[in-house]
């Protein structure tokens, strides 16, 4: 009798695992439930580490209110984004004076978010964030820090969202050399042995002359335009190489923005969602 019951339990266990493995809807529901359930614990852990960091700063005489830091970060992101936008507009304006018309880039809304945890295994370069306001966050939206592009929203849960970092091999975004008509695709390359994020800009025209130190920004020509606007800073050119095929060039980029557990990030929203 006991062995029969055990056999049924075993079958039920195998059935449960198989359903989770092969049925996408069960995977989605399972992940959403667990992530929503664990989000409060992650938030507590994140608050604890923030408080710990604040105490450390206060002890070193650098103490400041977290809210003020967040506000300043938001202002800095806005100012930098505006600067990039204005720089592009200036060049565009000169050209458009000779051309047909002018299209002003739509300013975008930023939703502040707190980093509550990182990836559990290390196989993925992801973060989990919790939006500080009730505004909705959409999949594939750009995620910024005051230093530039951090990644994109991979998955949205009721209480949190997964962010795929720029250095993850699955990350890809259309990019350009700032202020020039040189385009390419920025792709994550993982981390170096020293732990630095590695990013590469590929498919650059083989005849373009690129200088070391030039700025790389998003070109805004992705499918999710509006949530991934142009002019977002990605990093600087470190090295330029000719591809083995000889058909294009690729460049190593030093990304400036990295997402850490103590960072405040901002999710780019639709223009209609501007508060």
């Amino acid at each position, binding site marked *: 009798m006991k062995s029969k019951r055990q056999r049924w339990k075993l079958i039920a266990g195998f059935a449960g695992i198989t359903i989770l493995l092969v049925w996408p809807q069960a995977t989605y529901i399972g992940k959403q439930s667990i992530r929503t359930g664990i989000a409060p614990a992650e938030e507590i852990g994140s608050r604890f580490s923030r408080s710990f960091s604040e105490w450390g700063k206060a002890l070193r005489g650098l103490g400041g209110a977290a809210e003020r830091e967040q506000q300043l970060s938001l202002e800095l992101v806005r100012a930098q984004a505006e600067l990039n936008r204005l720089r592009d507009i200036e060049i565009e304006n000169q050209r458009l004076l000779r051309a047909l018309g002018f299209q002003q880039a739509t300013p975008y809304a930023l939703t502040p978010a707190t980093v509550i945890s990182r990836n*559990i295994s290390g196989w993925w370069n992801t973060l989990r964030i919790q939006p500080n306001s009730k505004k909705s966050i959409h999949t594939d939206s750009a995620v910024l820090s005051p230093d530039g592009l951090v990644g994109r929203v991979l998955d949205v849960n009721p209480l949190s969202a997964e962010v795929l970092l720029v250095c993850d091999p699955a990350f890809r975004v259309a990019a350009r050399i700032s202020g020039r008509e040189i385009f390419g695709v920025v792709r994550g390359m993982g981390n170096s042995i020293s732990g630095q994020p590695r990013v590469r800009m590929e498919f650059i025209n083989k005849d373009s002359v690129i200088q070391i130190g030039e700025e790389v920004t998003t070109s805004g020509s992705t499918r999710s335009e509006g949530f991934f606007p142009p002019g977002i800073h990605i990093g600087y050119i470190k090295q330029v190489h000719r591809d083995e095929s000889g058909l294009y060039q690729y460049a190593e980029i030093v990304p400036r923005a990295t997402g850490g557990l103590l960072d405040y990030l901002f999710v780019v929203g639709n223009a209609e969602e501007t508060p």
Partner: protein
Amino acid sequence: MKTFLRITLLLIVSVLLQQALPGWPIFNNLKPPLIGALLVHIAFRLPARSAWQFTLASAVIYDSLEPGPYGPALLAFPIITYLTLRFRHDLFGNGVITQLFCGGIAGLIIGSVATGMYLVTNTRPLDSIFSSLIGGLLIGALLQPILSQLLQKSDWISQEGSWS
């Protein structure tokens, strides 16, 4: 009931800790397999039923917190539990060498299953499989004795205890 609460608390703390810990860039950014080590420790001490319950719960939580498909933990953790339960009476679970060996094997199993899963689903580039597997083995072997000795000293999970 007391042991159940303790183990639940341990699981939550280890999940949060494993997420907060930095990866090891030399081993393809792998993180110390805290949950895997806790699983081995528990499988050595608790009755089979409780060990299996813990295994399934921790595997589902672990895989849910990963962006990829379910599988790496859901397949690896039961293998670790099965092997530990199968051989626990033949091994000296409190010995550092045994813990080192079992931790290494557990890390290797977790790494191998994840590699296999990502190879099948094509969700991760697997250009440094070797360093991931070696990393899993070494980090697992290093972590297991530390965690097991700490838990043994604190006496949080008693030998042959039950968590329900």
